[in-house]
């Protein structure tokens, strides 16, 4: 299971939208995965682990109903990834400022997506799961996976394009 820890973390992080909550979900998931590893007979351990992570995240959100609705401030988002936000040497200060602002904005947009769209997008774009695998992890028909993915991408692109048109 350890090779898939990084993937599990990414999903937990985007579902919970908070580093601490993601860690709890991840701890819980890994312990569950180990306990049931002996009974796992499938051929796709990554999908199986992601499914466990998703279940754990959803139970955690249910338990903490209300708490999950607190949006993550952009400061937290920016602060946790200082390296990613360092300006790269190729850009002049203005370009890198715009880039860094864009990045914050896109992260907030993603965090604000409804959870079913968000998880589908994360599983596709980042984990690069196939539609079939996403359908299995989220227990959703493939048609729904496709339309969720479409809606998630549309919301993102429209919001970014509107933002960029503002002076």
């Amino acid at each position, binding site marked *: 299971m350890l090779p898939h*820890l990084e993937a599990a973390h990414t999903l937990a992080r*985007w579902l919970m939208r908070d580093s601490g909550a993601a*860690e709890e979900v991840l701890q819980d998931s*890994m312990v569950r995965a*180990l306990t049931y590893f002996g009974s796992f007979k499938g051929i796709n351990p990554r999908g199986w682990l992601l499914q466990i992570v998703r279940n754990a995240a959803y139970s955690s959100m249910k338990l903490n109903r209300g708490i999950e609705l607190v949006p993550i401030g952009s400061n937290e988002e920016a602060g946790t990834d200082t390296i990613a936000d360092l300006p790269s040497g190729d850009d002049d200060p203005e370009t890198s400022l715009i880039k860094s602002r864009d990045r914050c904005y896109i992260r907030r947009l993603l965090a604000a997506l409804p959870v079913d769209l968000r998880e589908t997008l994360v599983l596709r774009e*980042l984990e690069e799961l196939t539609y079939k695998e996403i359908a299995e992890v989220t227990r959703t028909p493939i048609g729904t996976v496709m*339309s969720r993915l479409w809606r998630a*991408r*549309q919301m993102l*692109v429209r919001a970014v394009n509107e933002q960029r048109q503002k002076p």
Partner: protein
Amino acid sequence: MNMREEMSPAGRCEMVLLVQAEFDRELDAAQAANLQAHRTLCRDCQAAERELTQAHSLVHEELYHSMPDAMRQRIVARLDADQPGPVIRPAEGWTRRPATPAALSRFRSWRQSIIGFSLGAACAAAAIFLVLNPAEQSLTEQLVAGHVRALQPGHLEDVASTDQHTVKPWFDGRIDFAPPVKDLGAAGFPLTGGRLDYIAGRPVAALIYQHDKHIINMFVWPTAGSVVPTLQSAERNGYNVVHWSESGMQFWVVSDVEHSQLSNFAQDWQRSP
């Protein structure tokens, strides 16, 4: 796949979800060809393609939350609970370290306290123990296990490409170093792809090469220890392992090809620009 279900997003050509499916590499050649014929005439679908490309470039780097090292350590530590053996350092890991009686008794008490006594559960615990206690496994065994695991159907490659310029960037943002990627096709060892693996307590890059019908896995990660300019080799369960390090990276090559051929591969790699 039922493509017709929940199609036709409001106000758009009903084919846009197929455009998306092609974008996500879900269509076979015939479906893609049909779509192509339609798309040359359909503005909606042309616009959809541009939006998909834009969405992809927007999220590609933004979605990635690298896992903090401290968090990884806490999680692995908790899973390893009561197993405070040192994380294997590659330099020491070369020789097999037998499990100490203390470790075994810790294992037994851990197993019994958590899972109970039934045979099935004990088997499960043993499997977990092997997966999760790399400190009890020598590095050679981990590498061979990684190689064997990769040979299971669907586990070999996360990115399948014979182009080093496709494989190398694939690792960007997935691990905290940039592994050197070379194609040794001219020397009879064509590159076929790469994937992430987990060795010696850390994520590592695995490059996959082919030699005749044999698969060669090359594990690469930064080295903390001394440089090993000459090749070292070992053999475990019929698999050959060859190791060296250069330019701050350590290389571990595992395959079932003969030792002499694996050494040739290593030398070709070192000589290749």
